[in-house]
């Protein structure tokens, strides 16, 4: 069986980008609560959530954040990269029915440390940013 293609540090250039898109469902929220153990009522209890500033249930921040690690781990730089750092700024809530596009782009390379810096942005169907941040990867190949 063929193993995964591993990108080399020199094959990655500033400006390279990758993305994915996904619509958030009820099932996603329940599944993420189950797998993370995070049953915060803001995610799973509509009556509770209605009473908060969000006026209804929202998706887990780390569900959206996982899309970033998904694109990074599968596409850019893909398998073989070591996740070193991630900053996340939560700028708007994500709700059931929202379609979230996750895009990562290489904005810097540090050859002496074999590090690449990526800008990571998640936007919703209205093109509003919901999660913005920066990732740092170690690419030893």
């Amino acid at each position, binding site marked *: 069986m063929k193993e995964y293609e591993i990108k080399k540090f020199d094959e990655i250039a500033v400006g390279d980008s990758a993305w994915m898109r996904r619509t958030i469902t009820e099932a996603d929220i329940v*599944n993420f609560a189950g797998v993370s153990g*995070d049953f915060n009522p803001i995610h799973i209890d509509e009556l509770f959530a209605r009473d908060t500033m969000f006026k209804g249930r929202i998706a887990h921040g780390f569900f959206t954040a996982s899309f970033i*690690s998904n694109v990074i781990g599968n596409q850019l730089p893909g398998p073989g990269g070591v996740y070193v750092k991630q900053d996340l700024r939560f700028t708007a809530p994500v709700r059931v029915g929202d379609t979230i596009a996750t895009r990562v782009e290489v904005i810097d390379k540090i050859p002496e440390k074999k590090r690449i810096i990526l800008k990571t942005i998640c936007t919703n169907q209205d093109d509003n940013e919901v999660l913005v941040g920066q990732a740092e990867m170690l690419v030893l190949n």
Partner: protein
Amino acid sequence: MRAIHKGFSDLSKGDFACCQRSFTEADVARFANVIGFNPYGFIKEGIVPIMLVASMISKVLGMQLPGPGSSVELFQEMEFISPTFIGDTVQAKVEIKEKLQKYHHVLFKTTCIKQDGSTAIDGICRMKVLVS
């Protein structure tokens, strides 16, 4: 049920909360199913996806300190110091480092420590508390 609000004045520097969890291969496979990736590489190397480990931090913040209903996570910074392996037991801890009166922001130190004392994740989180 009404939201139970923990206000800004209820929080003090030094307050902390923890949760603990052991990771199994089933956890990794399930997480992969939920997020939508192939767990082959992780399971082969016995590694737990870092976002699954990191989700423990927002679980503690959201369910314990400051807890549900009253606050919003604004910013999180994480450094992934060492990998978490299947079978590891991780303790996530959040501790209040600073309260910023003017904006009702609270700064937390957030860490995930493995059973041998080594650090998996080190970071900070800034939350806004909506209730006085």
